[in-house]
């Protein structure tokens, strides 16, 4: 099973953000996408997630064309750079959100939430307010929330940016371990080369994705 973005072009204010970009991710593969600010990495993730319409191009999951599907029907998870935890819900409420949307029975949601809290090493945090979380804890909750509904692909949009060095390095290791233990297909966007290398099976730069300009 393969996620493919083919010929994606996005223009904003007359400016080409993505110009005929291709990306292909195999089942279980973790791809790190490197590039400087403004190179369109996040934009590409949003196109894949369905949050943003591209001017041209298609998104495919195997033979299924996802291009016209709204985000809630794509089963593609996204971890935002600034977490975007729901402020009115506690930790468990955030993690269980996707399952509630899918009308999973309550007991099953509780089990799955506990599983994920264990996975991200936050046992007992279920009833914490998200306002009481430290920076690192919030990142873990965001990751657990995105993983809870078992998406086909997990997109991570610079999830470790803005942390201090020590915490960053620690979370890189943890995140890599979690992703591998879950065995999820993932696209990890970052501008940090070391982070990319230690997380991913494949490291690509934005430049690699241009059809007409093969890697520099």
């Amino acid at each position: 099973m393969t996620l493919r973005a083919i010929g994606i072009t996005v223009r904003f204010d007359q400016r080409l953000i993505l110009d005929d970009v291709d990306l292909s991710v195999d089942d279980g593969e973790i791809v790190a996408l490197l590039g400087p600010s403004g190179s369109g990495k996040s934009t590409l993730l949003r196109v894949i997630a369905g949050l943003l319409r591209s001017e041209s191009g298609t998104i495919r999951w195997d033979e299924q064309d996802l291009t016209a599907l709204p985000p809630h029907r794509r089963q593609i998870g996204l971890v935002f750079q600034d977490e975007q935890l729901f402020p009115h819900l506690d930790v468990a409420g955030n993690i269980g959100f996707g399952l509630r949307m899918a009308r999973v029975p309550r007991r099953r949601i509780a089990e799955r939430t506990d599983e994920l809290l264990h996975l991200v090493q936050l046992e007992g945090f279920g009833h914490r307010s998200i306002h009481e979380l430290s920076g690192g804890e919030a990142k873990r909750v965001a990751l657990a929330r995105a993983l809870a509904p078992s998406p086909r692909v997990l997109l991570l949009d610079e999830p470790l940016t803005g942390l201090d060095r020590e915490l960053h390095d620690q979370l890189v290791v943890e995140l890599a371990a979690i992703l591998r233990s879950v065995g999820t297909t993932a696209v990890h966007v970052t501008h940090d080369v070391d982070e990319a290398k230690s997380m991913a099976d494949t490291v690509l730069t934005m430049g690699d994705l241009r059809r007409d300009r093969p890697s520099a």
Partner: protein
Amino acid sequence: MDEDRSAVGSVVGAVSPATASEAKAADTEAAAITRSQRHASALWIAVVPTIFLAVFFGWPLVTMLRRGLAWSAFSSVLGDSGIRSVMWFTAWQAVVSTFATVVLGVWPAYVLARYRFTGRRALSALLAVPFVLPTVVVGLAFLALLPDSWRRSVPAILVAHVWMNVAVIVRTVGSFVSQLDPGLEDAAATLGASRWKTLRHVVLPLTKGAILGSVAIVFLFCFTSFGIVRILGGPAHPTLEVEIWRRTTQSLDLSTAAALSVIQLVLIVGALSIWTWRQRRAASGPVAMRTRTAFRTASSRTESLAVAVTAVVAAAFVLVPVGRLVAQSMQSSRPGNPLAAWQAIVHSDLGASLWASARVAAGAVLVATAMGALASIAIAGNPRAGALLDAGLMLPLGTSAVTIGFGLLITFDHPPIDLRGSWVMLPLGHALVATPFVVRAVLPTLRGIDPDLRHAASTLGARPWQVWRNVDLPVLRRALIVGAGFAAAISLGEFGASSFLARSGTETVPLAIARLLGRPSKLNLAEASALATVLMVVIVAILLILDRQPGGIGQSDVHRRRARPARVARTEVSR
């Protein structure tokens, strides 16, 4: 959001700049592109409030105007020096009243938002009292208090306008200030700015947008002032509103009334356009906003003194006329029984009219909150068309009550909408006036919700309506409560439009007060004052309860982690 957000607060500008959405300085380009694609999506939501406005305001207005509109009336109206001076007086007193209200309101707004002191919340709720008092009662209190030389004079009008509207400034601007990062002020202080200079050069410029947002409402209130102008100004100083009322209800000169209504609308629309334009220009870019109210403690004796004096003066300003009314309720000319009037209203009017008021207010609150929420969603999603809807929703505030009232009467008199004699007219009429307040309360919070929060929900499988139900609504809960508090205050105090509608069995408290003052007895006067006192207690209670609503959630929380933890010396953060 913090627990200190007052219920009648948060009326920050419609096109309010510097709300939390702009505080999101580190907005990624990807997010910006995403947002640019979202606009059209909310447009259909505008349909419901637009139809509400068109059906219950536009249609009656046009029906009423068509009854009298004659082009010849315009030339005779504009050629009449008497009417020209009425127009001139209406405009300048509104400008001066608004200006005075803003000038006098901004400092207390700042003090109430920034300093913690005993009775702060009570004072905040108290400031809403003038909103629910029928003008006839306000007139009574002021005439008894003002110096003789000010009786039936323009200064009396101005003082009362300030008294009635300063709450709008205090609550709206205050709620904005309370979220402004006090770190900015501390930064200015470290750069050598005195408190005064900090206020002048940091706080005031940042607050300009919020001030402008509430200015429109104050202006419309003063422009269409009716009862205050008649009582405190005397017959020599009518406003356009008074003239329209007089031509319609007394002399049945509908063509003049229609011409004056059109002129009033043109002036209002003109003022609103300038306002919208100014608001855009006032947009000052991102401002560091805080999640919770950050209080200061005064750093110098002068500062403490200034705060204390402000609080005392503000309290006295509100309480003196209020106290006068309470005292009045005990003067019933029944020897040895100061509570005669209270016993009388308990026996007769109180229960029934409180019940009627509660019913009408509940209806008005429901309709206004629903319409205001839907309108806000549409306005937030569509900057251009939204500004139009926003201004359109303000129009009922600037239209004469008799035109709306009679318009409703002659419009909904046959199927499919036959509301003749129905009490439903009242909440509908009130909702028209209250909706813009709900918009003021909800819009800033709505604009402050990071679109990515909704995106997060949809990538987790939430359908659009589920996103609305599970993200927007809970986050807006607090702001909706704030808007509902405003709507309740408006409805409880509304008299103008109510008095023109045919009503059976429904006598709201303001109408009961007016009826009591229709008979020559000191007891009636005392009963009317007692009813007014009840009305004040009710609104203060409602606001205090609403203010205590647990764990409000608002725009700022959404950005909580972005806001820097400004726990600087001299700044303590409330819970």
